[in-house]
């Protein structure tokens, strides 16, 4: 594919996330991408395109971005290329898997990388257990397709167990550590002591 502004091959496929008219896709060579993205960066609309521009300015080369584009989330399978051409991520785990690549983006969009404000009262599932649940769900759908209902119902039970485990007030234990206590004595983390909310 050729660049929209010149004869060079288009190596950047940028989606402008300008609401509300919907995403607009640009196919550009590196040079035009740079100038387009620099312009975008000053627009009032927070956008992935603008944020990527700063990454380019900070010296990430075309080659580095191309390599990054190949990276695929092991849970949902989305590639970084697909993300930056659609502006949409594929699953919650992407924030963990692409973390290093997203941090500069978040910084450029929000001028911050840290949530301040409301949090769920129940325990947040760790990134790993969220990923695990999504994968289990996929497997369950596959099992159903293969008419392996026994396997499907095993998976359903496991999902239910995981959700019950997570269905506890957030004050109980640090969410960073709840991942792979892969034995079933999870029940000893029960929440009998005083601090019950509403």
């Amino acid at each position, binding site marked *: 594919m050729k660049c929209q502004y010149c004869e060079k091959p288009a190596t950047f496929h940028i989606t402008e996330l300008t609401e509300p008219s919907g995403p607009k896709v640009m196919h550009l060579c590196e040079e035009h991408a740079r100038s387009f993205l620099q312009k975008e960066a000053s627009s009032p609309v*927070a956008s992935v395109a603008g944020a990527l521009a700063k990454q380019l300015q900070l010296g990430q080369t075309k080659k580095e971005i191309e390599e990054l584009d190949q990276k695929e989330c092991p849970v949902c399978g989305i590639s970084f290329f697909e993300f930056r051409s659609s502006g949409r991520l*594929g699953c*919650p785990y992407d924030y963990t898997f692409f973390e290093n690549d997203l941090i500069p983006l978040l910084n450029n*969009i929000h001028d911050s990388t840290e*949530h*301040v404000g409301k949090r769920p009262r*129940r325990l947040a599932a760790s990134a790993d257990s969220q990923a695990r649940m999504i994968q289990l769900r996929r497997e369950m759908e596959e099992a159903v397709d293969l008419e392996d209902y026994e396997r499907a119902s095993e998976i359903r039970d496991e999902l239910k167990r995981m959700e019950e485990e997570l269905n506890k007030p957030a004050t109980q234990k640090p969410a960073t550590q709840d991942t792979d206590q892969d034995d079933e004595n999870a029940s000893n983390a029960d929440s009998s002591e005083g601090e019950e909310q509403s």
Partner: protein
Amino acid sequence: MNPITDFESLAKNSGEWLRGTGPESDIVISSRIRLARNLADFPFIRRCSQDDRDNIERNVRARMDAMADWKDIRYIDIEELSEVDRQFLVERQLISREIADAEGSRAVAIDPGEQYSVMINEEDHLRIQVMQSGLDLKTAWARIDALDDQLEGAILYAFHEKYGYLTACPTNVGTGLRCSVMLHLPALVITRQIEKVFRSMQRINVTVRGLYGEGSQYSGDFYQVSNQVTLGHSEQALLALVGEEVVPQIIQYERKARAFLVEQNEQDLHDDVSRALGILNTAKKISSEETMHYLSKVRMGVNLGLISDVLVPTINKLFIHTQPAHLQKLHGRVLGSSDRNVQRASYLQRHLHGEMGDGDLN
């Protein structure tokens, strides 16, 4: 359950947010907050299979049905709606254009007072939205916060210790909150100061956009101001930025511009708004853009005391009711665009002459 079939009766009423009351309601039409939320155990919509979407919808619905406060909720399966019905919900601001145009299973839950709605399978699994009339983000926040708490009790959200509520687009991550205030700014438009005002806004983390039909020269008097960032500021800080810093400033500018217009040229202004009312009262055919344009003038005229026999809530309602899908619902059948122009004119006249009364406003 049957898809809702009584849009005709829904059409006759107006949402609470169009009551035309609330703080600063001469300039502020409504305050809206939406929260983007996702389920922890599904991929984001873009990577959802058909099964995933069905499951999310069924799951969320079952859990909402079980919530005590949601007994009267209307649950609408968007996939099964006709084009006109989808458009109707968009006009009413109960669903987004994006979810109306999407494919696959998706739905919206609406409370009878139309103060809140929950879209399922929009860009995020859940888009919770609350509307209030006038400038009242605080009440809107109290409602949506409570609703979010209830949903959170039943649904495991995708949440990250550091990045907050995880969303499909990184522009929404963190609080997932967008608060938007809809403003009626005819005087800033007439005095050509609107650009200048908004240029000064661009540096302070808010976005401004024209509300209806871009590209239409007649619908430029409504603007929506929203927060731009969602990460790194608390919900309260975002609400304060929009509701206590930016919007009050714009309101002041608009008031000054209105006062200026009255001072400089009261007769011209009076003439202009009276002619607008005259056209709405006598036209035999009228397009929706023209209607918007003249209603906007009349609304300002009423607020400035230049027109006395029309009420602001009536005008607010007419803005919504004269849009294409509403008109067809009110008329009870599908209408082509030239039929609509005739029906619109007659609808306007019946309401502006007060024959229908305003009894159906609450």
